[in-house]
């Protein structure tokens, strides 16, 4: 890896880091969700400063190209995160639907009581 590329990587990671912190402080992201991202950016930062770490593991695992190993790990982590998001979104939709339905039914009861007659035909 050329020194220029490493500097670019470090700069980008640092930028992501700052954006993340700003977002959490502004309240755009919940801090418990941001923890994962902080850990990820720390790891990336560490690897871009000391790529030897990645090289070491690649050699241990018998992977010829360090980049391939890094890509594989990142893709794996991304798949896990998207999967967790799918489950999360499912639950959110389910809860939101339940709330909307409950609200509509309550509203209906309120209206019925206001009219003080049961809306049978």
């Amino acid at each position, binding site marked *: 890896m050329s020194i220029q590329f490493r500097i670019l990587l470090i700069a980008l990671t640092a930028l992501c880091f700052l954006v993340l912190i700003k977002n959490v402080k502004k309240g755009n992201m919940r801090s418990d969700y941001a923890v994962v991202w902080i850990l990820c950016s720390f790891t990336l930062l560490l690897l871009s400063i000391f790529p030897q770490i990645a090289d070491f593991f690649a050699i241990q695992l018998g992977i010829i190209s360090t980049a391939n190993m890094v890509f594989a790990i990142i893709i794996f982590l991304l798949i896990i995160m998207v999967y967790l998001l799918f489950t999360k979104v499912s639950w959110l939709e389910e809860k939101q639907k339940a709330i*909307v339905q409950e609200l*509509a039914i309550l509203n*209906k009861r309120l209206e019925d009581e206001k009219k003080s007659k049961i809306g049978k*035909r």
Partner: protein
Amino acid sequence: MKVLVIIPAYNEEESILNVVKSLENASIDCDYIVINDCSKDNTIKILEENKINHINLPVNLGLTGAVQTGYKYAYNNHYDAAIQFDGDGQHLPEYIPLLVDELKKGYDIVIGSRFVDKNKGLSLRMLGSRLISFAIKATTRTTVKDPTSGMRIINREMIKDYAFEVNRKPEPDTLAYQIKKGYKVKEIQVEMKQRFAGESIYSGLWNSVKYMAKVIITIMFFN
């Protein structure tokens, strides 16, 4: 037996009044409720002006969410049975007593089916229906001739299930699930009319393909 007719309505200003009137004129011993799924047209105005018993959803939930709202209402108000009845005029009220009678014999779900005595055509839609029938047959060894029929009555136990469990959309895949669970499903022959107005939400090739994939995959893997 307290029976509730659930009429989901989304942008049905042209047909909803006809549907409700035909239901009232049929003088069947049942209550009805229209679920207005946040329609963008004058449906709500028509419902209010004619004092039709209805629930307004504050946001659009889609057909399945609207029908489920009806099931929740039915459960809360202690109904013994609930019928889904489309707001576009396809379903005919004179068949409701037949469905109720059948339910009284001890069935859990009774479907108003178009194809008990009659054959399916050979249109693309019927091909889809055949595929779903085949998937249900393959996984449950039970023949359901018209799995996509929207006209079905369910008893109180099923109302609770459809109202509060996750993944119980009023669709063929849920039907297959209930059959597998050992609930008794019966089909009786009914007529259905062409819709008064509006378009099927399942129209269009892409929507049909999506629907089929969803139903078949659910029946095969998640039931």
